[in-house]
């Protein structure tokens, strides 16, 4: 089947279904697109419970006092997989007492598939977190992944992006540096 013919193969749900987002299928696409959108003012965020790489319960409140880039993702989501190395590099360069990338998986299959993916992709700086209680999916109104939130030291949402990005690009690094207060920012990149 030619590409020209194949373009007719995918279906559009009938228009009565309401909002019909136009999505782009991209084979081997690189994370790209605009960075996250900053809100005019910080938004209060419900506390999210989730579990860490050892299966211990934790929550967003445990990160209070640090700037957090919360990335909601899943191993079955191709764009999520593609952007993960950029998040890993961001954590490598900025992670520390003042900042952490929290990669929160909504995988039903749990930590093993997340660990497998981290190992095979050589993700070294990120810790696996799991949406064990479904809080991320319920409280953040996640309609799609990846969904990424920038959260300030008071636990408020200051920006959000639906869709992948190159999170280690200079603009993003600069933006996050600005939000990590100078007094709490590590002078040297801290590796976990």
């Amino acid at each position, binding site marked *: *089947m030619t*590409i*020209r013919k*194949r*373009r*007719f*193969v*995918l*279906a*559009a*749900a*009938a*228009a*009565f*279904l*309401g*909002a*019909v*987002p*136009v*999505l*782009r*299928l*991209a*084979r081997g*696409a690189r994370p790209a*697109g605009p960075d996250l959108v900053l809100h005019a003012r910080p938004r209060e965020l419900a506390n999210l419970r989730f579990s860490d790489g050892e299966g211990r319960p934790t929550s967003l409140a445990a990160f209070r006092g640090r700037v957090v880039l919360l990335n909601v993702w*899943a*191993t*079955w*989501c*191709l*764009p*999520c997989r593609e952007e993960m190395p950029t998040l890993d590099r961001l954590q490598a360069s900025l992670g520390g007492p003042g900042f952490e990338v929290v990669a929160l998986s*909504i*995988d*039903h*299959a749990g930590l093993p*598939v997340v660990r497998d993916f981290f190992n095979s992709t050589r993700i070294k700086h990120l810790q696996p977190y799991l949406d064990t209680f*479904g809080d991320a*999916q*319920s409280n953040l109104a*996640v*309609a*799609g*992944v*990846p969904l990424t939130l920038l959260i300030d030291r008071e636990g408020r949402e200051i920006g959000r992006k*639906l*869709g*992948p990005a190159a999170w280690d690009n200079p603009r993003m690094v600069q933006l996050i540096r600005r939000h990590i207060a100078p007094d709490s920012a590590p002078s040297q990149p801290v590796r976990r």
Partner: protein
Amino acid sequence: MVLRAFLVVALALLVAACGERTGGPTSPFKSTDMSSVDWGRDFHLTDHNGRPRSLADFRGKVVMLFFGFTHCPDVCPTTMADMARVVDRLGPDGQRVQGLFVTVDPERDTPRVLAKYLAAFHPSFLGLYGDPGATAALAKEFKIFYAAQPADSHEHYMVTHSNAIFVFDPRGRLRLLFMGGNKTVDTMTADVARLLRE
């Protein structure tokens, strides 16, 4: 050609809007009541294990049917993940719920791809596919239309896609449509539980 495709969709919108009854004060359901429509009756496809499947195979179960494709677009819909959570929330009753994923991209979504994809959500879920003719017939039956979007030189192509779930009761009748703001795990779980109690 493209224009004609869009006109067909627009027509479908009108037809569907007339036949659709939203869950008003008389409906015990939180989601869109589809009891009165005379389409979306059945399907004849093959599951990812190679077994022919139609709605009759799932008698006694509530069926949640979702149309999609595994080659994830820019933003992956979380619908299948939500469906898995509904099944989990129902506890033992979850065994009387069948999640189905119908690929609208059968060329790339081979049985093997489907099997791997579905396993990521729930062990009980099945991926269904048909040849282009069967897919076309199904699209017609469920008022799903072919998108006519040009592919670019990198074989990227646009698709229009909805996250709506078609829900059938244990007797195999199309009853509900989970869509839009009502498509939360809470409301879906409540409505599926109600169908199971009938």
